């Protein structure tokens, strides 16, 4: 019983202290009662660091470059393969060193295309992962309200309108 009475007393003291000091705290923070010190609070996306931007650009560049190389060799290998591929009817051609060289070129281009496009895919994946990892958090921004009132004058038909704002 005695303990309960002490608890009630302490809670009452804390509540009373809070009520008394609340306006003082607001004043000290430049809070909602402070004249001419109000701020606009907003959220905005943060920006990546220079290193992160360079890394991302490099990865995109590597993706495009290896993709372009791979695509070139892909078409090259397709063209060469079409020259010598045969099924069904006899071509009436003799398999000589020239055709063998063409085949080797087609295989070489196909291998280069496979490696290049594989690398391009890997770079693309790395680009996406890096983009996600380096995604900046939302940051809270503060902007001071305009503290000086600016008068404005606008002409109207048959006269003009003047306006003036005040903050308080």
């Amino acid at each position: 019983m005695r303990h309960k009475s002490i608890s009630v007393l302490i809670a009452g003291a804390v509540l009373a202290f809070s009520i008394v000091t609340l306006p003082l705290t607001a004043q000290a923070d430049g809070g909602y009662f402070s004249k001419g010190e109000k701020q606009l609070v907003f959220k905005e996306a943060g920006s990546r660091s220079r290193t992160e931007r360079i890394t991302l650009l490099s990865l995109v560049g590597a993706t495009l470059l290896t993709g372009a190389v791979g695509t070139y060799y892909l078409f090259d290998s397709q063209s060469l393969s079409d020259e010598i591929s045969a099924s069904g009817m006899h071509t009436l051609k003799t398999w000589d060193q020239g055709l063998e060289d063409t085949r080797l070129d087609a295989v070489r281009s196909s291998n280069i295309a496979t490696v290049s496009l594989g690398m391009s895919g890997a770079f693309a994946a790395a680009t996406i992962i890096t983009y996600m990892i380096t995604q900046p958090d939302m940051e809270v921004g503060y902007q001071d309200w305009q503290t000086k009132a600016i008068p404005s004058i606008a002409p109207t038909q048959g006269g003009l309108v003047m306006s003036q704002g005040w903050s308080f």
Partner: protein
Amino acid sequence: MHRSLFIPLVIPLVALALVSCKPEISRNTYFCGPDSLCPPNLACQLGDNESFAYNCVLPREVDAFSCPEFTADTEPDNEPEQARDMGEIGCGEQVQFQNWGCIADDSDVDHFLFVRPSECNGANPRAKATLRFPLGAAPLVMELLDETGQVLSTSEVCTGEQDSTGTEQVCIDNADVTPGTYRLRISLDEAANADCDGDCRFNHYLLVIASPVT
């Protein structure tokens, strides 16, 4: 995730799926080249008795080489005295004589004999011999010999540029054939150096002799 980031990922992967574009070559679509050259996974069918030229086929379809039966009737003819007698060749004949033959190995030499009985009085008379053989096995050479065995002419390659038969052709075109007895000697061409490193030192052939004028 930003939508535009899919583009650099999707394009390479789609292209990658199309990459498997290496040459695909089925059996019996190409003649064997010199040195029995064939596309990978195919082999030269040197034992093919159905086709004059050799074709690239599956390795399990390859038979060992043997001279076709119809070429055996001229053997033995390794010595000049054993030459197959083709008789007299006239004047102005486009095809005077035609014969299938075979060189079975290093030691095999074929001889053919013909006689020019009299002077040919046509314009630009010649004795012309054409030897055609498949490219896949060892190349052959042909020599024109006089009565004493002296070599008068040696064949030269005369395959047409547009030839699509899988064969090579060598020719002797001699304008200096006076009346007399001549022999043709056919053997492996040692200078050609296309005998599959010694594994295809044989071939069969078709010999055509003509006596054109003009």
